[in-house]
């Protein structure tokens, strides 16, 4: 069928031309209605047939695809993605406990996680989000060095302080764009500037306090809220210390006393914690876990304290004016009495 063959060629060519004009989805977004003003030096030939037609289309030299911002690290490697995961974890998680794990086997990890889940799930919930906290608590093994870098980025890189960069859009016009993501050069430079090898880190920074902990194989337990009840339950499983956080009894949770779980728990070592951007050691974590009634109780205590202090203050301030008023009032009554007494005396004298 010759006619069909003849038709196929022009159709194919037009397809190729269209394709060359619009190389990908992101380009479509930036392309103006009239693509005549395209001028730059980079050139992509997508179809051999379309070269002559589309030679007018060139990407600007400093064009940055909107879905792929420039990064200081290769953006699509596992390490970079892990780093982004850790930074977002550090920014969003108020309570992180850091454990050292010494050669736990897979079955031991499974047993430890099972016991932890059971303990967290069995907390009697007077608050509504208790189950949610329990379900989102996670014990995960981390890559120590990447976690270290993530901590640095979270501490020293402030995305709001990064200035805009000028890049070209597809059309060649200059656009102001802010690249302040965690993999950006700005983040990299901020971290480099803060942690120079010859200068010691300031003692006040949380990273300086937590960095000695980040050695060897580590695991973290993340809780999505600072809930002392959940923390206490987790401590009683993972790092039991008899008076405050006793291990569960054999009758109550037989799985905990299973030899596999026990040997796993013996190899887990709680070395510290990061609670609301502050670094705590074992004692500090236990102190937080020992807060009765959680944050609400602490707030109630504070309110009560402030109220009683205010009450004392008002009575003290009132006291001076009150006593003044009392003395004046008594003086007035005395004077009145004297006046009345004098008048009565006079009246008596007159009458007599």
């Amino acid at each position, binding site marked *: 069928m010759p006619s069909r063959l003849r038709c196929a060629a022009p159709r194919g060519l037009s397809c190729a031309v269209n394709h060359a004009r619009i190389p990908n989805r992101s380009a479509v977004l930036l392309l103006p209605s009239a693509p005549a003003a395209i001028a730059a030096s980079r050139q992509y030939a997508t179809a051999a047939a379309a070269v002559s037609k589309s030679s007018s289309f060139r990407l600007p030299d400093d064009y940055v695809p909107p879905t792929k911002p420039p990064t200081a690290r290769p953006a699509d490697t596992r390490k970079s993605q892990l780093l982004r995961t850790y930074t977002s974890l550090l920014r969003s998680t108020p309570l992180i406990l850091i454990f050292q794990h*010494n*050669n736990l086997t897979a079955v031991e990890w499974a047993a430890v996680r099972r016991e932890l889940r059971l303990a967290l799930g069995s907390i009697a919930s007077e608050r509504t989000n208790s189950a949610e906290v329990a379900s989102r608590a996670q014990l995960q093994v981390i890559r120590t060095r990447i976690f270290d870098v993530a901590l640095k980025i979270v501490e020293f890189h402030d995305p709001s302080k990064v200035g805009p960069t000028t890049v070209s859009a597809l059309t060649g016009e200059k656009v102001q764009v802010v690249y302040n993501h965690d993999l950006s050069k700005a983040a990299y430079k901020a971290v480099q500037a803060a942690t120079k090898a010859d200068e010691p880190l300031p003692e006040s920074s949380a990273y300086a*306090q937590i960095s000695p902990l980040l050695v060897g194989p580590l695991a973290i337990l993340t809780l999505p809220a600072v809930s002392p009840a959940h923390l206490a339950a987790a401590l009683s499983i993972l790092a039991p210390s008899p008076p405050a956080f006793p291990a569960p009894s054999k009758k109550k949770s037989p799985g905990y006393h299973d030899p596999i779980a026990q040997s796993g728990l013996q190899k887990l070592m709680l*070395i510290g914690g990061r609670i609301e951007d502050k670094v705590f050691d074992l004692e*500090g974590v236990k102190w937080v876990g020992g807060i009765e009634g959680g944050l609400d109780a602490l707030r109630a205590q504070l309110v009560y304290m402030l109220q009683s202090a205010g009450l004392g203050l008002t009575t003290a301030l009132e006291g001076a004016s009150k006593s003044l008023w009392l003395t004046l009032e008594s003086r007035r009554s005395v004077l009145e009495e004297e006046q009345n007494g004098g008048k009565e005396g006079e009246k008596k004298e007159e009458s007599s």
Partner: protein
Amino acid sequence: MITRFITDVTTRFNPFSPRAKSARLFLTFLPPTARLSGMNITTQLLPRSSTEPSSLHIKFKDGKEMKLDCEAMGIKSIVEEVDRHSRLLQKEADLADG
């Protein structure tokens, strides 16, 4: 590291001190079945403010005790020290087995 001949490991360290690194890393060198095969491992964590030096105390099957100074030694030299004695015991054990 040869851990067959170690019967007792006792460590004390403050995890917030950078010098505790070698003591902590030594614990990670012990195999997963160390406790099952009869090794006693005791770890004591010191509070954050403590300035006590980190210590590592090892006992071997033949009764030899080793007190290693974790402050000055890196993990490599600690492993070297421990292996030096373990190799002697290994040699003896191999000869005894025939």
